[in-house]
């Protein structure tokens, strides 16, 4: 067995990792269901600063086979837990410009509580657990891998994370 180089498709058939700009509008257009009264979309976008320091762009790196597998599992778990009609996500790899989208999560459910809670759950788990890393490139030419999950400093276990309530 060699690690798979094809990224696992998300529940909706779209790849969960993308080296190209995310087609957020296309994802949203596909995220409707006649039994779903609530659709929630989260878009994580590149800010022009990090704690006040001007940012020129970000770069995302992923250990793709595992990241794709984990995101697929997180989506499937959320779909079951909150009885979602739809749960899809896509995360960028490579260079992402200021103002561009780095990650999108869309959830749809009969009522809105579930769509909100599941959406937050999915993005929190992706950000804390999937092997995807962010390098901040600053306007002054320097760069820094960072803003990483630091939960292990509290939990004492690199596999245990702290989340806000997920309803």
């Amino acid at each position, binding site marked *: 067995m060699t690690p*798979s180089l094809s990224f696992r498709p998300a529940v909706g058939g779209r790849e969960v990792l993308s080296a190209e700009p995310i087609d957020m509008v296309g994802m949203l257009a596909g995220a409707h269901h006649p039994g779903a009264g609530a659709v929630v979309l989260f878009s994580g976008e590149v800010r022009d600063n990090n704690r006040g320091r001007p940012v020129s762009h970000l770069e995302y*790196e992923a250990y793709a*086979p595992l990241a794709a597998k984990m995101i697929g599992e997180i989506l499937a778990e959320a779909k079951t837990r909150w009885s979602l009609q739809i749960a899809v996500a896509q995360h960028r790899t490579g260079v992402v410009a200021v103002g561009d989208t780095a990650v999108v999560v869309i959830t749809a459910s009969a009522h809105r509580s579930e769509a909100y809670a599941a959406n937050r759950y999915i993005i929190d788990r992706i950000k*804390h657990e999937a092997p*995807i890393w962010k390098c901040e490139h600053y306007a002054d030419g320097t760069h820094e891998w960072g803003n*990483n*999950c630091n*939960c292990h400093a509290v939990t004492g276990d*690199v*596999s245990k994370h702290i989340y806000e309530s997920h309803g």
Partner: protein
Amino acid sequence: MTPMSGLRPKERTMKIHVYAGLKDYFEPEFEVEGEARNTDELKTLLVAINGKAEAMLSSCRFAVEEGFIDNAYKLNSHDTIVIIPPSSGG
């Protein structure tokens, strides 16, 4: 020590892939020579190569192919060990 590919016995090597901040301390892909039966022993080998990586290594997870491994996993010489720093978080 087991003879490999009919060549003379040599020290065991493992392929290592590192990501993100670990690339400040190691090449993205390299081979490490030495005996490491589990991830704790591998960490010791890696710290011997670059002591500055010690703090970061203590917060890393390890994976083989598409699965995380813990210290109970017995490393094989044909495994490619992936070292995974904390994710992008916030």
